[in-house]
C-alpha cells in the first residue's frame, strides 16, 4: 500500500470487481422473478438462470480470492485481528439467519395457536418415521463434524478428511430423504396455512442444509488440498458452526412441526 510499511495487522484488499458482479447477478435474478411471476415466463426463467449463473460465478470468484489470500498469508500464526474479524462476522451472520427463521417460527406459532384444530382435519399429516431418521442423520452429522474437527486439531488429517466426507454425505442423504418426503406428501404448499407453514419452514431449512453441505464439500476439498493447520482453520470452523446452526433449527422444526402437534 503506497510503499510504506503498515503498522497494523488489518488487511485492506485492493479494488475488486466480484462484489458488483454478484450484485448484478442478484439484480438480474430479481428482475427475472418479476417477469416469471407477472409477465413472460420464458424471459423470466432465462433471466433467473442468467442471474443465478452470474451470482454464483461472482461468488465463486470472490471466495477463490479469499482462499488465495489466506493461502498467501499462510496458515501459521495469522494476525489475531483478522481471525477475530472472521469469527465475529460469521457469528453475526448466523445471528441474522437465526432471526430470519425466528420470523417464520413466530408465524408458525401464531397460526398454530390461532387455529382451533391443528393440524387441520382435512390435512393428512406425514408420518414421523422419515423426519425421525432425518433427525438422527443430522445429529450424527453433528458428531462426525466434531470428530473431524478434533482429528484436525490432533493433526490426524486423514481421519479429519474421512469424517468430513461422512458429514457432507449425511447432508446429501438428508436432502434426498426430504425430497422423497416432499414427493410423497398428500398436501402441498397451497393446502391452507398448514401446508404454507410446513413447506416454508422445511423448504428454507432444506435450502440452508444445501448451502451448509456445499460449505462442507468445500472444506473437504480444502482439506484434501492441504489447507488449514492444527491452530488455524477458520473456514473449517465457520462451516461447522453453520452446520450446527442448521442442525439446531432442524431439531426445533422436528419438535414443533412434526412431533408436538400430532
Amino acid at each position: 500500500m503506497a510503499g510504506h510499511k503498515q503498522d497494523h495487522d488489518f488487511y485492506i484488499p485492493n479494488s475488486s470487481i466480484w462484489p458488483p458482479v454478484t450484485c448484478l447477478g442478484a439484480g438480474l435474478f430479481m428482475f427475472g422473478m418479476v417477469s416469471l411471476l407477472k409477465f413472460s415466463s420464458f424471459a423470466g426463467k432465462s433471466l433467473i438462470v442468467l442471474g443465478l449463473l452470474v451470482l454464483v460465478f461472482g461468488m465463486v470468484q470472490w471466495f477463490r480470492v479469499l482462499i488465495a489470500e489466506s493461502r498467501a498469508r499462510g496458515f501459521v500464526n495469522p494476525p489475531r485481528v483478522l481471525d477475530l474479524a472472521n469469527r465475529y462476522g460469521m457469528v453475526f451472520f448466523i445471528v441474522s439467519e437465526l432471526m430470519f427463521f425466528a420470523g417464520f417460527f413466530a408465524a408458525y406459532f401464531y397460526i398454530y395457536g390461532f387455529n382451533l384444530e391443528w393440524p387441520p382435519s382435512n390435512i393428512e399429516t406425514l408420518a414421523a418415521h422419515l423426519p425421525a431418521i432425518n433427525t438422527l442423520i443430522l445429529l450424527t452429522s453433528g458428531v462426525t463434524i466434531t470428530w473431524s474437527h478434533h482429528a484436525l486439531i490432533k493433526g490426524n488429517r486423514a481421519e479429519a478428511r474421512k469424517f468430513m466426507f461422512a458429514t457432507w454425505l449425511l447432508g446429501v442423504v438428508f436432502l434426498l430423504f426430504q425430497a422423497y418426503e416432499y414427493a410423497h406428501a398428500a398436501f402441498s404448499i397451497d393446502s391452507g396455512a398448514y401446508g404454507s407453514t410446513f413447506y416454508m419452514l422445511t423448504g428454507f431449512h432444506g435450502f440452508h442444509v444445501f448451502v451448509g453441505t456445499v460449505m462442507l464439500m468445500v472444506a473437504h476439498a480444502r482439506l484434501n488440498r492441504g489447507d488449514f493447520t492444527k491452530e488455524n482453520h477458520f473456514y473449517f470452523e465457520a462451516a461447522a458452526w453453520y452446520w450446527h446452526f442448521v442442525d439446531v433449527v432442524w431439531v426445533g422444526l422436528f419438535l414443533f412441526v412434526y412431533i408436538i402437534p400430532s
Partner: protein
Amino acid sequence: MSHTAVANNAHTSPKKKGFLYYLTTVNHKDIGAMYLVTALAFFFIGGLMAMFIRAELMAEGYQLVGQTITLMDLGFWQWKVSFGPDFFNQMTAMHATFMIFFAIIPALLGLGNYVVPIMIGSPDMAFPRLNNWSFWILPFAGMLMLGSFLVPGGANAAGWTVYPPLTNAQYSPGAGIDMWILAVHLAGASSILGAINFIVTILNMRAPGMTLFKMPMFSWSMLITAWLQLVATPVLAGAVTMLLTDRNFGTSFFNMAGGGDPVLFQHIFWFYSHPAVYIMILPAFGIISQVIETFSRKPLFGYATMVWAMAGIAILGCLVWAHHMFTVGMDPRAQIVFMFMTMFIAVPTGIKIFNWLATMWQGTLDFTVPMKYAIAFVGMFTIGGLSGVMLAIPPIDYAMHDTYFVVAHIHYVLFAGSFLGIMAGIYYWFPKITGRMYNEKWGNIHFWLTFIFSNLTFFPMHFLGLMGMPRRIPNYHPMYTDLNLIASIGSFALGAVQIILVINFFYSKKHGKPAGDNPWGAKTLEWSVSSPPPEHNFEKMPVVK
C-alpha cells in the same frame, strides 16, 4: 499540523477516478460518499412524490387525481401526463418507501461509513469488499422500485406498510407489490450485511487505547443501530417473503380462508418497522451528540448514561411493535403492556434530551450551521417524541389512528429528527469530506428556511389530525381546507429551498475556502488527519490515551 498535511497529500497521489474505479472501490470513504450522493438523489425523488401529495391536498376536491396535464405543447406535439385514480395512493406508499429505504437509511449509513472507521482509528471497514456489495446492490433495488411505476397497475398503492388483504393478489393484482417486495429484499440484504460490517469494524478495529467507553457517541450509535438492523431486518425479509408466496404460490399465511390471519402480517411487519424508526433516529442522536459536544466546547454531559440510554431505547424498541395495531382488536391486557413499554421509551429518550441540554449549559456555544441544526433537532424531535407518547395511549390512539396526527408525529420524528440530524452531520463533516468549507451565509439561509418551512408544513397536520382528517385520502371535507393550504405552501417552499443545499455543496466542493484539518476545533480522531483524509486514514496508527 502543516507538516502532516503535506505528508498526507504526497501520500494520496491524484488519479483519475472513473466509473470503473467507483464500481470496484473498497475504500470506506468512497463508498460512504457514494451512499450520500445516492441518498441525495432519492431524497429528491421521494420529495417530488411528497410534492404531488401536497399539491393534491392543497384544496378540497380533486386537483391532480383523474386529471390529464399537458406539460408541453408545441402545437404538433404535446407531452401529457394523466394521473389515474390510484396514483395518489402510489405516491403516499412510494414517498414513504423511498424516504425510508433509499434516502434516510443510506444517508445515515453513508455518514457512518465515511466517519466511523476514522473516528475509532481504523484504516477501513472490517470487510471492505462486502461494503462495496452493500452499496452496489442498492441501485438494483432502486431500479426495481422505480421500475414498478412503469408496469401495468403501477407501483405499490397500498401504503408502505403493504398490509394484506389490500396487498393480496385479489386486490393488488399488478406487479407493483411484487417488485416492491423484491426490492425490499435487496435493500434488506444490503442492510443486514452492512450491519455485520459495522458491528465487526467497531468491535474489532478500534485503535490501541480506544476502549468501547472512549468511543465517540456517533460510533456508539452506529454500533447499536447495526445491532438493531441485524436482528430486525431478517424478520422483515421473512414477512415480505410470506406475502410474496401468498400472492403468487397459493400460501395462506395472511389469508383467513386458509387458516391464516392478516393481523399476523402486521405483527411481523412492525417487529421490523418499529425498530426501523430507531435505525433512522439513533445515528442522528449520535451525530447530534458530536455536534453539540464540539460546538459547546465541553465534553458530552453524562457520556455513559448516553450510551446506556441508547442501548435501552434499542432493547425496548424491539418490544413495543403492537402500539401500531391497537385498533385491530387486540387483547386489552396486551394493549396496556405495549402502552407502558412504549411510554417507558420516553425515559431513556428524555435522558438524552436533558444530557444534550446539560452539555450546552454554560458551554461556550458556537452557532455554526451544524449546531443550529442540532439545536433545532433537539426542540423539534421533542415534539415528535411527545406526540408519540400520546399515540401510545390506546384510547387516544383509537381516535387518532390513521389520521393526520400520525402523519404529523412521524414527520416530526423522521423529518425533524432524522433529516435535521443528517443535515447537521453533512454540514459538520462537509469540510472533512471535501477539504473545503461550505458557504456559511447560504448554509444559514438554508437552515432558517428549512426550519421555518418544515414547521409550516408539519405543524398544521397535528390540528388536521385532531380534527379527524384521515391520512392517505386525496379528498377531504371543506373544514380542513385552510390548514391543508398552509401545509402545502410550506411543503413546496421546503422542497424548493433544498436546492440551496445542493448548489452550496457542489459549488463549495470546488470553490470553498480550504478547510484545514480541524476547522471546528473538534476532539475526535477524524479531525486529526488531513481533509480529505489520506487513503487509509492514518499514516501511523493513532494511540488513544
